[in-house]
């Protein structure tokens, strides 16, 4: 992808020189390598020894019952959990293209630019559509109007929203429908040209039409981005993702190609969960 805005290069001191572990079978090129991760909220451990490769330019779905740790792991990928007192990885590492994202020298703001996030409930800023999308660019120090204009249009087009809002870019983002607001949030995340997009139940508050639009968008975005999606909707995981990871009680039970997980999972617990025998 051609950079249309002048973003500073990633400044995080990498330890990419360290040999990257081999990706798991079925993953051609891993964008994210999660290795033996334990995570705790204070004394309460919620992730146990999780190891997982997230392939580049593909959609990986995290599924599992509430409280299984899938959202916690998702939030580890751009260190969103840093914002919670006492929350920390107590063992293991998470590497993005070889860089340990929890190294003390990593710039968290820069990490979150590289790893964008879309939340369960759309959360546009109380600003115009244009300013919502331009927000991240301005924070990153981009001031040139023409660059911002270009990035806003490109992001809104990438989020399949441009045609619906191009004539009202300067009205409040709150005036959009729920589905449009969610796509606005996706556009906002894309504006800073992340490499990875994390989606935490992005369609849980949307109607079927808006859900279909977001799912189609996910399909298109994976051409350029690595996408990790947390969903409770089994059909959505089946439709959207290339790989599916099933979590239970803070442990990764199974990860495999989505077609395999939903036709013939290897683990009994996965089978029982996806077929609705426990939850």
């Amino acid at each position, binding site marked *: 992808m051609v950079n249309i805005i002048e973003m500073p290069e990633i400044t995080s001191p990498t330890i990419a020189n360290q040999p990257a572990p081999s990706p798991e079978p079925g993953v051609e090129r891993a964008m994210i390598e999660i290795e033996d991760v334990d995570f705790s909220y204070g004394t309460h451990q919620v992730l146990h020894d999780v190891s997982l490769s997230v392939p580049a330019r593909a959609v990986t779905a995290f599924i599992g019952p509430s409280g299984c740790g899938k959202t916690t792991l998702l939030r580890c990928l751009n260190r969103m959990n840093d914002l919670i007192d006492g929350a920390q990885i107590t063992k293991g590492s998470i590497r993005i293209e070889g860089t340990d994202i929890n190294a003390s020298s990593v710039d968290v703001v820069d990490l979150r630019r590289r790893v964008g996030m879309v939340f369960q409930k759309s959360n546009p800023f109380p600003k115009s559509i244009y300013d919502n999308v331009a927000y991240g660019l301005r924070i990153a120090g981009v001031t040139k109007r023409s660059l911002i204009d270009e990035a806003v249009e490109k992001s809104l087009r990438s989020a399949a929203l441009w045609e619906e809002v191009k004539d009202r870019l300067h009205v409040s983002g709150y005036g959009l429908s729920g589905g449009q607001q969610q796509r606005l949030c996706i556009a906002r995340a894309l504006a800073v040209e992340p490499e990875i997009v994390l989606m935490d139940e992005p369609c849980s508050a949307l109607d079927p039409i808006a859900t279909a639009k977001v799912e189609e968008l996910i399909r298109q975005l994976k051409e350029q981005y690595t996408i990790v999606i947390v969903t409770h909707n089994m059909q959505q995981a089946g439709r959207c993702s290339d790989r599916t990871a099933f979590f239970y009680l803070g442990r990764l039970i199974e990860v495999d190609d989505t077609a395999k997980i939903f036709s013939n999972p290897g683990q009994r617990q996965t089978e029982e969960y996806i077929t609705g*025998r426990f*939850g």
Partner: protein
Amino acid sequence: MIAPKHILGTFDEALASLRNNVLMMSSLTERSLDRAITGLVQRDDELCAIAIADDEEIDQLEKQVDKDGIDLLLRFQPVASDLRRVVSAMKLSSNLERMADQGTNIARRARKLNQHPALPETALIMPMYTHAMAMFKDAIDSYVREDVQLARSVVPRDQPLDEMNSSAGRRLIERMAEDPGQLRGYLNLIFISRCLERVGDHATNMAEDAVYAAAAEDIRHQHSASAANG
């Protein structure tokens, strides 16, 4: 190990109903074939007529299984073993319906044969019938018990049945030349032999579907694929 029940009781009920209808079709098909062959061997037109009439109920059950299967797919969006169970049930019912059609064909041919003096060559049919029905029963048993090994054992048994059919055909053609006065009778026996060969084919299909349902493995056309590759 028995799978635990679904959280949705209606899902379990729908799956059980689908399976019960397939098993009902299986019982009716077996009875229909048995009546048709008994009608042939005992020269009983009434049994043949009953076998022909049985087909209507089996046809209706096939439609019911399809309807229930589609309804289940729509309402519950089954995945993994549940999806395989639904797909297999629908495919089994299709094979059972065609198998029952063979019973009807046999009964019709038997009625024609019964209008003429008995042919000793009718005895050629019984070993084929016994073989085909053993395949059929094992295919159904393997589906019911999710017994992959039993299901796999059914598939190679189709070849001997094909050979029995060829052998019977050759013998009956010889008899047609030797005894042209009974040409129609021998021709009817050739058709009956062919029907039983088709019963074996359907039993093989059902066994393959039973393997897919239980083990998610598609074993169809492996012989033809390996022959093509070889």
